[in-house]
């Protein structure tokens, strides 16, 4: 098993605020990693740095043990196979659902693109809405559409930022099934989520972040028992 994403000594600052503080982390291929932590712990910032949206002050992020992501552009990172779903559903509202997914194929789509798009739409259950404008979709549908957009290019690293926020129980259920189906030996999946039950169901290991550092790493069950984690969450 190889390391998909290796993070070493990562520090990110916004002005005087230190969002990530000398963080180190390794995520393997084939694994689903849950990242949890209270608000402001640095979860989204972590994804921002990996996907190239934010710049690190110090430290490095290695993808596939070779590619240094902290110096690459967002587009380069995406093209190398690292894809991310944003926290706020980010779809192209003035385009059709089908167009959205087709754009997800990337700048140089393969010849079998249309078939891939059709299959993907089936998978997320949006085939019937393919020619509607994305802006007309319901919130949950937008979440899935965005997942479809990032998954259709078969990324090696898939990052999901709060995939079930605002979804109904039933929708959450379907999302969990979807994530489980996406798990593959050649792919690392990182899930940032507040819903602990959801994280427990889909992830192999969890990383608990607190004030920009790793507070705990291991299984969800052990995390729930960890004194420090409980302390942070319940604010004792």
């Amino acid at each position: 098993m190889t390391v998909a994403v290796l993070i070493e000594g990562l520090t990110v600052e916004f002005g005087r605020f230190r969002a990530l503080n000398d963080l180190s982390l390794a995520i393997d291929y084939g694994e689903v990693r849950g990242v949890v932590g209270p608000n402001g712990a640095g979860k989204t910032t972590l994804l921002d740095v990996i996907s190239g949206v934010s710049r690190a002050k110090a430290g490095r992020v290695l993808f596939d043990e070779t590619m240094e992501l902290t110096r690459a552009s967002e587009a380069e990172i995406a093209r190398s196979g690292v894809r991310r779903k944003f926290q706020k559903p980010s779809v192209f509202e003035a385009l059709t659902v089908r167009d959205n997914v087709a754009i997800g194929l990337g700048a140089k789509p393969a010849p079998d693109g249309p078939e891939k798009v059709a299959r993907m739409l089936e998978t997320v259950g949006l085939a019937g809405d393919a020619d509607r404008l994305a802006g007309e979709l319901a919130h949950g549908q937008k979440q899935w559409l965005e997942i479809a957009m990032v998954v259709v290019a078969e990324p090696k690293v898939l990052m999901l930022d709060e995939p079930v926020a605002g979804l109904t129980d039933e929708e959450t259920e379907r999302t969990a099934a979807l994530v489980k189906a996406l798990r593959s030996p050649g792919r690392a999946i990182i899930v940032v989520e507040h819903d602990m039950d959801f994280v427990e169901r889909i992830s192999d290991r969890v990383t608990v972040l607190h004030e920009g550092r790793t507070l705990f790493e291991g299984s969800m069950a052990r995390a729930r028992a960890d004194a420090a984690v409980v302390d942070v969450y319940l604010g004792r």
Partner: protein
Amino acid sequence: MRMGRRLGLLLLALAAAWHSPALAHDRAQIATQACSGAAGLSEAAATLTAGASSATPEDAAWAATLTGALLDKTIRCGARASTIESPSGFIDAATLAKAAPADGSAPVLSLKNRPLVETARAAATLFAGATAGERAAALRALERRAASLPPELFETAAAREPDAGLKEQILGVGQSALLNSSDVAKRIAAIERIAAQPSRRAETQIAALKSDPAYAKEPVFAAAVDAGLASIDRWLRVSSVANTLYNGLSFASILFMAAVGLAIIFGLMGVINLAQGEFIMLGAYVAYAVQETLRAVAPGLLDWYLILAIPVVFLAIAAVGVALEATLVRRLYTRPLMTLLATWAVSLLIVNLVRVGVGTQNLQFVTPSWLAGGKLLVGDFIVTWNRLFAIVFAGVTLVATWAVLKRTPLGLNIRAVTQNRAMAGCIGVPTRRVDMMAFGLGSGLAGLAGLALCPIYNVNPQMGSNFVIDSFMVVVLGGVGTLAGTVVAALGVGQINVLIEPLYGAVAAKVIVLLMIVGFLQWRPEGLYAVKGRRK
């Protein structure tokens, strides 16, 4: 021979001091001369100036009245006699007795005659002025032309002057009038005195002495000239730096006033109010309305209308801003670019409403006595009161705005929403209400900018259009959401502009500064101060 004449005059002056009979003016002839065209007038004025020191007190008073009437155009040059319109009615120009008004008009003073008549009046007033203040003013008028006046004028005047302080001053001025005297010691004293009030004019005056034969012959004289020039030069350099700083500060204060309202609104809501310039214009119009109201209701307070108008202007324009926010800006909240166009339309509307309603002419502002003119501080460095007013006003506004933002609940809310709108909303900050209040605050500040500008610029419907680009550039350069950034950017832009202007001209200065800002923003889009935040 020259010496002898001077001695004679001195004796005369001494005699005058003991109220001995003096030479009388030929009043009738002088009055007729003054009304006989430009050449006659200059002769009459010269006669009056030359004879000022030897005139009787009655003649001096008459000379002051006549020259004053010429300057104020209260004289009527008739075919046979001329009359002066005095507060107590028409009087004869020669006898000052009551007379029927002559049917002529006042002669228009040519540029050549005006200083001659002014000098004649000042010379007469130095003797006939009723109060020490009047005489001191006359002395100041004479001082600039001291070298061209007969020295005995000052000597006599000093001898007659009852006020000890003024007497000293007259003697001093008299001293500087001796620059071309034959007594080297007096000339050196004159040089020292002139050099003590350094200005470019003084420099020219003394530098001219380098070609004087005495400069080559008398080493003491040459040393005095050189020392005087060196001293003036030093002060001129100081004053030139002071001028540049003052001009830069003055421009910066205008930029700051124009930008501060925009900074708050843009920082908070991310929208640009293109009608901001028109709010500045409206502020000036409201100040005008206050002035006119005071003129009608309480003329005694008219001198203070600028101060009294502050709350009125702020509240009025804040109300306009709140109305604009509630009717237009709020509805376009998610579309900042549309807000841009909509507020542009509003600016068009305001300009044309004012144009149709009030007219296109410049408004007639009374310049309060405390804002007119300025004070020469050192060398060529003049502090003009209207600019100083704008600087102080900007300073006070800065402190007040800072206090509002840091010390009031509204300020706290504004800062909270500026930093994180969603979070502020979550913890119960009424964001929409804060938007409205902040828009009002920003608009009110723009109105105050208009008030601060009305002693400096013309007030007409077009006046606002010049401000939007400049003030927005200041806001963006400083960094959105930081008051300190706006201040620093305004200071920097103002100073750089003033530094470039004498080198490449005003157009190039403006172009260079704007291009510098555009370039800077390409390199650092977040501006000087703003914190780099998460992009999404």
